């Protein structure tokens, strides 16, 4: 029954705060600074594209579309574009061949790893194994390259020889010269190994969001574990798998050192994946850079731009596919 009396603020007490939806000056400044900082990432990306284009412009002007369709890489005298001829066709085709092969070889292991971690083991073991997988994703590409050249290649060349022996009648497994070292096949093995942890972390994430009620329903109908996975999880996670693999593809296309160490670069479009000759845009840049004259550097910039745009498209596609699945499931 007692009434609460509120004392009126006296003049020397704290001033009553003005309640407003207006932001004060320091907030406005803060928001402006942060916005500018965030937009600078956009600026960096735009700068990369424009600088590469600007530096490579002369090359595009000189060779036009031929830069993408010819395969000769000849600096001529080196001090002018006179007599020089640049084309990335072989490198571009080689990049796509190696990356696609890597993806195909990694695919069963990505599916296996994702399903195993999500549906075949308990939570404790999963946490530990996922940590190990993250650690494997952090192994630098130069170490993959070193291992690929010194440890894998002596073995894998033998595998390539057997494939050639038994499946040589398939055109892509034919070889002209019996040398199986430093082939696209071996590079693809290394790249495939590199993209397994990247692709499976995305795929696992999507698989884990498969609707539990449908899985339980599959079990309730008498389905086995594989039955439930096949009926519910795999269809649900299809686009997550595609997104994850595309992300891996983007990584494989842009990978430089691991390929540089394990692939013999040859300036000729070739489809014989077991032979010791292949192409790769990223490795081209790293390998030619050291001895390149001013005009060849421009050609390398142009090649860099082509690579940049290619990976941008692939990664963009991947992120759209992945984000669409995460929206559906939420």
């Amino acid at each position, binding site marked *: 029954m007692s009434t609460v009396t509120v004392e009126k603020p006296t003049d020397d007490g704290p001033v009553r705060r003005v309640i407003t939806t207006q932001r004060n000056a*320091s907030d406005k400044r803060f928001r402006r600074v942060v916005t500018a900082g965030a937009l*600078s990432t956009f600026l960096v990306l735009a700068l990369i594209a424009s600088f590469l284009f600007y530096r490579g412009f002369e090359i595009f002007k000189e060779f036009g579309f031929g830069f993408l369709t010819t395969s000769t890489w000849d600096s001529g005298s080196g001090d002018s574009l006179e007599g020089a001829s640049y084309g990335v066709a072989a490198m571009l085709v080689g990049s796509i061949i190696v990356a696609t092969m890597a993806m195909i070889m990694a695919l069963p292991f990505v599916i296996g790893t994702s399903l195993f971690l999500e549906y075949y083991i308990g939570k404790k073991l999963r946490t530990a194994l996922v940590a190990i997988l993250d650690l494997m994703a952090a192994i630098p590409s130069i170490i993959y390259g070193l291992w690929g050249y010194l440890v894998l290649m002596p073995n894998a060349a033998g595998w390539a020889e057997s494939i050639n022996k038994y499946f040589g009648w398939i055109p892509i497994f034919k070889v002209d010269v019996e040398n199986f070292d430093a082939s696209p096949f071996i590079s693809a093995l290394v790249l495939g190994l590199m993209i397994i942890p990247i692709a499976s972390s995305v795929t696992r994430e999507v698989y884990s969001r498969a609707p539990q009620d449908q899985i339980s329903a599959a079990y309730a109908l008498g389905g086995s574990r594989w039955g439930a996975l096949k009926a519910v999880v795999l269809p649900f996670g299809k686009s997550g798998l595609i997104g994850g693999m595309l992300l891996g593809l983007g990584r494989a296309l842009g*990978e430089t050192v691991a390929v540089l160490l394990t692939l013999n670069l040859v300036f000729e479009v070739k489809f014989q994946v077991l032979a010791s000759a292949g192409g790769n845009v990223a490795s081209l840049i790293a390998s030619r*850079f050291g001895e390149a004259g001013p005009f060849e550097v421009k050609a390398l910039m142009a090649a860099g731009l082509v690579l940049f745009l290619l990976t941008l498209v692939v990664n963009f596609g991947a992120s759209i596919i992945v984000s669409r699945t995460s929206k559906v499931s939420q």
Partner: protein
Amino acid sequence: MSNSVLPTTLHNVKPEKPWINRRQSLQEVARPVAIATAVATAIVLLTGLAGPLGFYVAFVLSFIVVSFVDGMRHDKVKAIDKVMTTLVTAGFASAFIPWASILLTVFKRGASAIYFGFFTNDMSITAADDELGMGGLSHALVGSLLILLMASLVAIPFGIITAVYITEIKGRFSGVVRVVVQSMSGVPSVVAGLFIYAIVVSRFSFSGLAGALALAILMLPTVARTSEEVLKLVPEDLRSSAYALGASQTATTFRIVLPTARSGLITASMLGLARVAGETAPLILTAYYTAIYSLKVTGQPLASLPMYIFQNFSTGTDTALTRAWGGAAVLLSFIFILFIFARIAGRGSRK
């Protein structure tokens, strides 16, 4: 009351729970393993498959057959389920064989290059072919640390600012910025190197600073995306409470949100560092390599661990390769330590 009508035996009936995975008995596990091992041994002895790898392949193949036969004693569904379990497990386990091989070779072959002087000498008076007791990678270690430090000074603030923009400011461009960061994480490392070459190196010279800028481009998206995830975990209640107490958004961000997420932000930074510590391609184009110990980050090339490995690999002789493995062992340990720190810091944030 009605219980008394039921036969007494029913009281002892325990409900079955067929949906719960029954723990397999030791015998159930051991029998197929034993049979598959025997078959695999026979295959290795009798056919062309040889060595540990050949045994593994033979083991997996025979295990598939054994699990199918084992399942068929029940029915076809069970058999297919068992085969798929074998395949999925093999798909997971097979990926670990090469990784185990990488770790083993790096540390086994690297160990013969490592001695005390490996960490205190540089290669200025030692040729790549000299005995392993001479020379070292102090120059590369210090160079790597300097480059990573400078890269962090650029990438960590910008990464966190980008994350703050997406989670706190929630401005008009949030979606665009997120997409840009996503695309940036896909920029090939060699392209980042080319870009810095075009705007910095071609005007001045190879330098550690240029290398750091190239690595910062690659580091930023990792830091930004991880930080964004971390900041999203900060409860909305905390922000509301701060606003209710009259705090400005600036104060809320700096005094409440960022301190709450501190350990997560440390994790984000560590992951970013681990991501770029082993990058080689951008350094070929920016920092290049020198055999001499130096703390100068401008005007001259600066050595780094990945470039040390790359140089020794290019030399290609036995001692040089051993040095490369030694460098790889040091680099890998460095990255693993960063990772473990990131894990420890991350664990703190979840409490």
